[in-house]
């Protein structure tokens, strides 16, 4: 049963990644593309965190509960793998910064073109480049 739940969680995350990829590729609205991109990034991070998880019962976060050598062996028995978490922590903040950058670009595009629909932006771009009316 536990193996089944574990497999369902992983497959659900993979399905979420596929749906968000569909969103990035197929939605014409730039804001919706950004939302799909954040979903994609967060799901990927969650998958990486799950790589470090241990499917055992008393499972502990990777923080030493007591500063004594006696507790260490028991701690190593139960603690999850800290390395994926450490990698994800930076990835989350970088993801947030990149999302802010993309949001800023989308706002700027909206100000310049009056729309966030990529198809309309594509239509208006040649006119702008030729120095025509805005």
């Amino acid at each position, binding site marked *: 049963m536990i*193996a*089944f739940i*574990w*497999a*369902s969680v*992983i*497959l*659900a995350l993979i*399905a979420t990644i596929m749906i968000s990829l569909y969103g990035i590729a197929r939605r014409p609205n730039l804001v919706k593309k950004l939302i799909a991109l954040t979903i994609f990034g967060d799901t990927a991070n969650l998958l990486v965190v799950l790589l*470090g*998880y*241990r*499917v*055992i019962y008393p499972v502990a*976060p*990777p*923080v*030493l509960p007591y*500063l004594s*050598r006696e507790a*260490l062996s028991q*701690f*190593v028995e139960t*603690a999850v*793998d*800290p*390395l994926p*978490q*450490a*990698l994800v*922590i*930076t*990835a*989350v*903040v*970088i993801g*947030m*910064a*990149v999302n*802010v*950058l993309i*949001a*800023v*670009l989308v*706002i*700027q595009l909206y*100000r*310049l073109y*009056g729309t966030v629909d990529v198809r309309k932006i594509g239509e208006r771009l040649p006119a702008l480049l030729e120095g025509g009316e*805005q």
Partner: protein
Amino acid sequence: MKKLIPLIVILLTIFGLAHYIAPKLPPQTELRPLGEFYLKNSYFGEYSAKSPEVVTSILWDYRGVDTFFETSVFFLAIIGSLTVFRLNKKEERLAKQKPKEFTGGLTLVVKSVTKIIVVMILAVSASIALHGHLTPGGGFQGGSALAVAPLLIIAAYSKYALEEHGLDKTRALILRSIGLLGIALVALVPLLTGGFIMQNQPIFPAEIKGQLVSGSLIYYNLFEFLAVGGGFTAVFLLLAIPEKVFKEILGVGE
């Protein structure tokens, strides 16, 4: 009803596949050797970072250079947003000028609650950052929490209130620069004493007057806190410039 069909199909596929692959997945009950090394060494052991928080000790000690360059990616992303919104002196004054008919913000209730909440957010974010080497948390998380405070003020009062009381884009950028400079300095200090870059133990003292500060981890967390908080505040201030003013600056009339 039409939307339910894809949902049911997806759910059925997931559960069917899960039933099929569940016995074939490797049992994830053992630690990888590298993870075990970090768990055993983070406080005790020969390669110790003197921190009971294993994630932070990986973040700023064992894999410090990774984090160092990821911080520079963060730096570049913020610089990118600032470049897109680049304003010259005159335009900046225009963006800071309060419109005449502006009465300001949400109702009194929201404003007075915001004042109290902002104080509490500042205290909580500082707690997250300063206890990064003891409990889950650290500079990134604390900095993100810190950036919520100016965001709340922008929402409840307005960006003008923030700028009138001294926190404008330049100051937020100065705060961020202090943070980044501090990170770079703390990373370079070990070179002076013959260590390698971003070395933690035994160059930085693990305890100050009996209080565990885990060597350089607390300094990194503190400076990262300032850098992330300041960077996000600057971007939020730019995002809060009203549409009308920005269209005027860009010369894009309706």
